């Protein structure tokens, strides 16, 4: 659904309130919830993927070369990756003042 939810009319709804766009929740930004942000030190990363497998928010991507990248659009700042990284390659830092985007 392209419309914001407060503009959806009853006529826009599918029969039975069915949602027929699988995975469309990915438009929803959960990154706003963060008060702290993960900081990744590539030098310390052994490319084991541990952070990736434990992320409850699918906010860690494994890049083609095996290193990782946080997806701050989704990262809620829980800090699990920091705890689980075997080499201490990720730390949490205070989220700076949020700007417009």
């Amino acid at each position, binding site marked *: 659904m392209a419309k914001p939810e407060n503009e959806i009319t009853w006529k826009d709804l599918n029969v039975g309130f069915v949602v027929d766009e699988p*995975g469309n929740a*990915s438009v929803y930004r*959960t990154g706003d919830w963060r008060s702290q942000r993960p900081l990744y030190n590539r030098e310390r990363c052994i490319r084991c*993927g541990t952070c*990736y497998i434990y992320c*409850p928010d699918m906010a860690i991507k494994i890049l083609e070369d095996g290193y990782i990248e946080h997806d701050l659009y989704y990262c809620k700042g829980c800090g*699990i990756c920091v*705890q689980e990284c075997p080499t201490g390659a990720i730390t949490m830092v205070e989220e700076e003042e949020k700007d417009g985007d």
Partner: protein
Amino acid sequence: MDKYLDRLGIYAARLVSQKEYFVPGHRACQGCAEALAVRLMSKASRTNTVIACATGCIEIFSSPFPLTSWMVPGIHVAFENTAAVASGIESGLKAIMRKGRIPLKKINVVGIAGDGGTSDIGLQALSGALERGHNMVYVCFDNEAYMNTGIQRSSSTPFGASTTTSPAGKVVPGQTTWKKNMPEIAAAHDIPYVATACPSYPFDLMEKVRKAAEIEGPAYIHILSVCPTGWRLPPELSIHAGRLAVETGVFPLYEVERGRYKLSIDLPELRPVQEYFRIQGRFRHLTEEMVNKIQRRVREEYEKLKKKVMMTREG
């Protein structure tokens, strides 16, 4: 020793499919291990899957209209009837495939619910579905209380835990009953596969889901899903807490495959339960006496489980 336990393969995470069937944008709390467990389950059950989901945290955080985190089809109907809905899906698909109305295809029907939806209000429907022998998987995501409604106690809340309806009071110190042993209840239905799992052991969890989906007939998986909000622990420690639950013997990982018990991780020495309790606010009020009482019980239960393994060993 089981090859799917995480410490035996630090690089195993790289070998897991990067395809997600449960996508980000879901609204679970920070550090929610239940969301992680759902993610891992979905990775294991993959694309040919239909989900029946109970009312509860998962339903609320995964599919607030008009959005859904699910890439696979799913239905939510009510709180207590997930197993029945799943058995209906299974029966429906079976009938229309047999009658040639849709092509024959292996589709995993997976019912998912929380501990309340499983061991309390949904127990009857689950028992019925397991007894009828539908070819389906039922996964209980156990966060040990009614978290979605605000941390009320369930029959799955452990002894001593403080919840909003079993508060640690001046006279009654939290939950006064022992956690209902749901996996054993499932196993008593003599179904082909029962397992316990925890997302702190992701490869083990995924392997168990895969196995459950493959096995013909009903399968039950009980997943301890750490809830930082309800357990009052820092969100970054939810994986750690799950590991401690296992290593203290509070939540042993095991399988019951066609009646045979098998420990997924056989611990030569259990860590003291206090290590597990210390990091959680819900146990903060426990006296030494209560901890000792729990410790004794955990050891006894673990020994009982080990005996079952011995007794049902092949040959």
